[in-house]
């Protein structure tokens, strides 16, 4: 392994450690939303894409139908498809390796792959980031879920307010263009208008219409992964 590859692996592990801290908040929020420790850990192991997991537990926490939560999670998961289109030719895996690597395809592993100049470095960036995030994200989810479970009423600790803060933190790095800011305001407004009239979970799904409307009417913008947790 050359010096450049070692440096890439070190960076990947650093990203994993930073993301692990964020997994603690997911675990705590998940159990205070009404999921048990097993369900919280299953989400991190099997879904393994943070925003989708937060969306699912957010809907469950608002007493919504978990099915709408899963749909919100799927809509948020579509961005990983776009990441895959760019990552696949850079890492050049096929068959079983590609099927296994797909599970590690998230914001962080994409961001740490796309800037590389060679296939070896792209693979090093993808694997070191993807594997260290996977390991620490799951350990942190378990720790957060166990801690959240022992806390009692989540409102006492403001954990219900933590969810809104978490979503704002995920949204923040994406508010870098005027179009995205307009989309955010319209999406939030449409969801709130619908709240009194439709079941919990539906307003967020319906807000997706704003993305379609602006997608049809706006000019081109290249898709890059946000550098967020």
């Amino acid at each position: 392994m050359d010096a450049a590859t070692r440096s890439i692996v070190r960076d990947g592990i650093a990203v994993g450690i930073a993301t692990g801290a964020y997994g603690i908040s997911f675990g705590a929020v998940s159990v205070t939303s009404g999921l048990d420790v097993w369900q919280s850990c299953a989400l991190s192991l099997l879904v393994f894409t943070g925003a989708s997991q937060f969306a699912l537990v957010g809907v469950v926490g608002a007493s919504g139908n978990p099915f709408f939560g899963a749909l919100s999670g799927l809509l948020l998961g579509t961005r990983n498809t776009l990441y895959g289109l760019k990552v696949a030719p850079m890492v050049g895996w096929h068959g079983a390796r590609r099927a296994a690597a797909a599970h590690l395809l998230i914001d962080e592993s994409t961001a740490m792959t796309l800037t590389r100049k060679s296939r070896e470095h792209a693979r090093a960036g993808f694997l070191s980031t993807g594997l260290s995030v996977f390991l620490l994200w799951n350990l942190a989810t378990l720790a957060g879920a166990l801690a959240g479970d022992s806390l009692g009423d989540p409102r006492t600790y403001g954990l219900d307010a933590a969810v809104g803060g978490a979503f704002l933190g995920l949204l923040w790095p994406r508010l870098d263009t005027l179009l995205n800011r307009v989309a955010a305001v319209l999406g939030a407004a449409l969801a709130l208008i619908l709240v009194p009239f439709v079941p919990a979970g539906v307003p967020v799904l319906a807000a997706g219409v704003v993305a379609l409307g602006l997608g049809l009417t706006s000019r081109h913008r290249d898709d890059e992964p946000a550098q967020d947790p």
Partner: protein
Amino acid sequence: MIWLAILGCALGCYLLKLAGMSVPEGVLAHPVLRRTADLLPVVLLAALVAVQVFVVGGTDGPALGIDARLAGLGAAFVALLLRAPFIVVVIVAALTAALLRL
């Protein structure tokens, strides 16, 4: 019910990842499709922020209302302006709401 949602979400999210890794890049080249996919996370996350902060569960179902969560969101906003890391943003939001309820 929750397990079914978890497993369905897991399978769907994995297939979305695998599809991106497997299809040729040109397949999703249509600009409207790409722009919509690009905007989806922005719109959904903003809607999730709004619903998490302003919706209160009433006996007649969900309604809009304001409580300590809005102060938590304001504190999170300030933390983000100050470039605080994600975990700090979440903790600041929770602590602010908790302190207001003392």
